[in-house]
């Protein structure tokens, strides 16, 4: 009796193990949680783009001029370009570790649509790169004598814009993840596609300084984000399949 009970319960457990409950939402949350935990355990990787951002911003007054007026005039563009490069720097590792240890292949084999699962990975990338950069930017803005009244807009435009940057960049990261030296190629592929986001992001901060309406810029940043949200996951999924199978 006990033996049959044991085998029965064992059978139940194995059945329960093979077919986990829950569908897309569970898979999405599981991917999100796993990536968050993994990234938070590698703190230096999370910190590096932020330190890079701070160092690059430090270089400009040294290289150009410490004159506050001059710096204030170019601060919106400098902050945006430096944040963009910092976000780009962290892209290469987006799929790299998963590709090396084979968990990316497991992600491809899941019954859930790959496009949505990659969206979870991109969301983690934004949470740990784009959002901290956006929060840190006002601090660096003070150092560049950014005129008052534009700090909130700077953080907001960066938060909105870096989400699009993460989505677009993930396409490039997925295309180059199978290549051993994909880093420089990645920036060559991705930077031209970043230009619209840069224009409207830096434009929003400029408009805030000049006292113009910022809503147009922010609305277009939002539009770019929604377009990227709709289209980029499919391109990322297709690129990952190419990189894995090739």
């Amino acid at each position, binding site marked *: 009796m006990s033996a049959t009970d044991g085998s029965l319960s064992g059978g139940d457990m194995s059945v329960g193990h093979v077919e986990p409950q829950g569908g897309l939402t569970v898979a999405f949350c599981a991917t999100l949680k796993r990536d968050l935990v993994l990234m938070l355990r590698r703190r230096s990787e999370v910190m590096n783009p932020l330190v890079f951002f701070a160092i690059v911003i430090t270089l400009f007054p040294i290289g150009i001029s410490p004159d506050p007026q001059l710096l204030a005039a170019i601060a919106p563009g400098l902050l945006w370009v430096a944040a963009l490069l910092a976000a780009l720097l962290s892209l290469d590792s987006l799929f790299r570790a998963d590709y090396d240890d084979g968990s990316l292949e497991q992600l491809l084999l899941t019954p859930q649509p790959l496009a949505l699962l990659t969206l979870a990975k991109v969301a983690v990338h934004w949470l740990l790169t784009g959002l901290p950069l956006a929060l840190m930017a006002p601090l660096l803005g003070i150092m560049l004598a950014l005129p008052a009244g534009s700090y909130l807009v700077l953080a907001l435009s960066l938060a909105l814009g870096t989400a699009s940057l993460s989505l677009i960049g993930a396409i490039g990261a997925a295309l180059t993840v199978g290549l051993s030296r994909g880093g420089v190629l990645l920036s*060559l*592929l991705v930077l*031209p*596609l970043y*230009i619209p986001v840069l224009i409207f992001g830096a434009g929003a901060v400029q408009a805030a300084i000049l006292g113009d309406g910022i809503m147009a810029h922010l609305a277009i940043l939002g539009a770019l984000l929604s377009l990227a949200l709709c289209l980029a996951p499919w*391109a990322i999924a297709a690129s990952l399949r*190419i990189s894995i199978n*090739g």
Partner: protein
Amino acid sequence: MWAFINKLRSPKWFYAISARLQPWFWAAALLLIGTGTIWGLAFAPADYQQGNSFRIIYVHVPAAFLAQSIFVSMAITGLVFMVWKIKICDMAAAMMAPLGAAMTFIALFSGAVWGVPTWGTWWMWDARLTSMLILLFLYLGVIALRGAFTSRDSASRAASVLAMVGVINIPIIKYSVDWWYTLHQPATFTITGRAAMPMEMWAPLLIMVLGFYSFFIALTLTRVRSEILRRESNKHWVRELAGETR
């Protein structure tokens, strides 16, 4: 339509049909470019403002047309390749990319040369110039990505995905650069003689544009033919062909 697509699957059929088409396009290209050059350089009237320097238009505009068209055709052939796995389309996309990049460079270079007499400078951050420069970077990205893969199939599919991503982005980049330009500097210079062009100037331009397109088709056919021979060099019909000519 389906019969045509199915026929495209056979490189042998394409090799045969392109042999018949090829001379016509080469002849058309030679004739049109020859006529257009002579008419445009020698017989078209000089511009009342720009004098003879406006004649650069006969190279500049057709090259710029082609630069944009080739990227779109690259994306279309990439899509057809991804959907129907037609190898000819991928070969065409691969062969078009360097020509497209060259045309973009010619358009940029001739624009810069034209800028000296009209604007008094080699380079202006003009909206059109800037979007052409970004287009050049997009071309270089596609070419570099194709070259980075060791497996030809992965390279083809990755380049196709990137060309499609690029072609979705080209209008966005174009409009955002236009927006950026109007924000930053008013249009102090406009290219005169373009809006209201007399017939004697316009006709050779049209001939040159048609000539450049014929040249593009002819060159792509020729290059695809040699690419077919290279990729199919272990096929029976290619060896037979080589045996006959030897």
